[in-house]
């Protein structure tokens, strides 16, 4: 009986220890649970913490899917520089190499590093782009619209876009080739000849009309006061007229620059909206099904 009881105790302690070991291995910081937690965070869109947990997991078990997910997490946080670095570090032997290279190029594009993007695209590994929504080749051409470098010729440019997009892309191309900008010099000359005309040239109609009336009004008052013998007042209005006249010339030149900045901003905005609307950066990797 004594032996039996002892055997039971030993058996129990072994079992308990096995259970304990099982729990320890399966503890909150076991590789399996770290990955589980990282996936949970990723699907909750807490990408920064997800990336941290994936990195922790990677320190224990090498895994190219996890490497890809880390890069994707940074991309989803709009940290494109880090994403590009991570995508580019995925080895050629990995099954994620091709998508990683595509995402690498897209990250370079999204980080605004257009020159490097074009270099890597032109001299990098040939890509099988058939599964890539949007297409890096189109982005390659698109990048010319966003920089001040010479545009490729029109046919070469349009060739890379699907038929449905060609009309819109042609209008972007034409805009970039001949931007409808206003010349500061012409605006200033117009306002020198007729006060306010430079503003009308830059489409600031109300400013132009007001500049015309105020310069003419002040000029007339100067003339009228001199004529009535009120020389002091005459000089006040002469100064005022000169101020309006000079200010209007300067203002017209500035208005042309503001106009140009405005249309350039609108153009870039249109391009970005177009990229978004046409799913150029659509994330086709859904790890949260």
């Amino acid at each position, binding site marked *: 009986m004594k032996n039996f009881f002892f055997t039971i105790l030993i058996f129990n302690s072994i079992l308990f220890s096995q259970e304990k070991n099982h729990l320890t291995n399966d503890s909150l910081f076991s590789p399996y649970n770290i990955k589980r937690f990282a996936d949970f965070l990723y699907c909750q869109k807490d990408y920064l913490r997800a990336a941290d947990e994936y990195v922790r997991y990677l320190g224990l078990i090498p895994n190219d899917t996890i490497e890809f997910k880390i890069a994707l997490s940074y991309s989803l946080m709009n940290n494109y520089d880090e994403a590009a670095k991570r995508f580019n570090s995925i080895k050629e032997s990995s099954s994620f190499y091709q998508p990683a290279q595509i995402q690498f190029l897209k990250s370079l594009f999204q980080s605004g590093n257009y020159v490097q993007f074009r270099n890597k695209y032109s001299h990098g590994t040939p890509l099988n782009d058939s599964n890539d929504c949007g297409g890096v080749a189109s982005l390659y051409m698109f990048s010319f619209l966003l920089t001040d470098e010479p545009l490729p010729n029109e046919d070469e440019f349009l060739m890379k876009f699907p038929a449905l997009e060609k009309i819109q892309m042609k209008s972007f191309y034409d805009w970039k080739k001949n931007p409808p900008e206003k010349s500061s010099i012409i605006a200033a000359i117009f306002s020198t000849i007729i006060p306010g005309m430079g503003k009308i040239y830059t489409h600031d109609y109300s400013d132009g009309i007001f500049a015309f009336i105020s310069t003419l009004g002040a000029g007339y008052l100067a003339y*009228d006061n001199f004529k009535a013998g009120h020389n002091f007042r005459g000089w006040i209005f002469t100064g005022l007229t000169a101020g309006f006249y000079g200010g209007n010339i300067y203002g017209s030149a500035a208005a042309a620059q503001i106009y140009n900045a405005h249309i350039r901003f609108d153009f870039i905005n249109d391009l970005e909206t177009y990229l978004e609307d046409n799913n150029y950066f659509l994330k086709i990797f859904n790890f949260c099904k």
Partner: protein
Amino acid sequence: MYNYFQFILILLTVVSSKLFSQDILENQYNYALKLYIREQYYDAVTEFKRLSLFDTEKKYEYNANEYIGMSYKMGAKFSDAILFFTKAEMNARNNEELFNSIIEIVRINILRRTISHAYDLLDSLKKDERFTIKSAEIDYWKGWADIFNDNWFEAAKEFSKVDSTKFLAEFCYNVEKEKYSVSFADILSHIIPGAGQIYTGNYFSGILSLGWNTLWGYLTISAFLDNRVFDGLVIGNLLWLRFYNGNLQNSVKYAEKENLDITNRALDFLQSGYSGKKP
């Protein structure tokens, strides 16, 4: 006898595994709490989220979400904080926890100036019979909502309902008294150009405004007296009226700016000099 020992054996194994699992969660809770206390809020959120994922029995669900919300609040991530306080609210185990999580949501709404949400929540708490005994606390937070809504007089009224917040009531009354009347500044400047600016303590601007209006007013009137009607109309419209209008806008702007300074000074004082609960 053998069956009896077998039963004991199984029981020991099951209980010990269960106890050990609870130990892990308790340790994790304590670890996350330690991070929170050390003000390592980023790590605290991570560890509370880990706890929340593995706490299948939802024993720590309320506390984990509450602390995640607090940590996000400390990092000024107010929308995230509200999300987790709402989760805490849904997992509240009693009225006290429910009340606390709603009050935390109210405090966040006050901080991020979505005051109407704060008012709505406080009103619904006030109407809820479960929280009748919390009436003083509801009034207290209503007072803070009024402060952040720049309604110092209403705030004073709320604080004066409770003895322990009489100091705050007096403070809010004083702030209200110190503030300038925007409409009075406007009326003064209508009557005497520059007087509104002088009323708000901006003497230089007031005198300058008075000077310009006097000059253009004089030139306009003298042009009419000399029968130069066109001159009078042009000077009056293009110059005097513009300066007069500018003077009116200026007086309102200065009164609002001075009031903003007074409010900001008061909020600064409350932030550093008031030791009671703050949003």
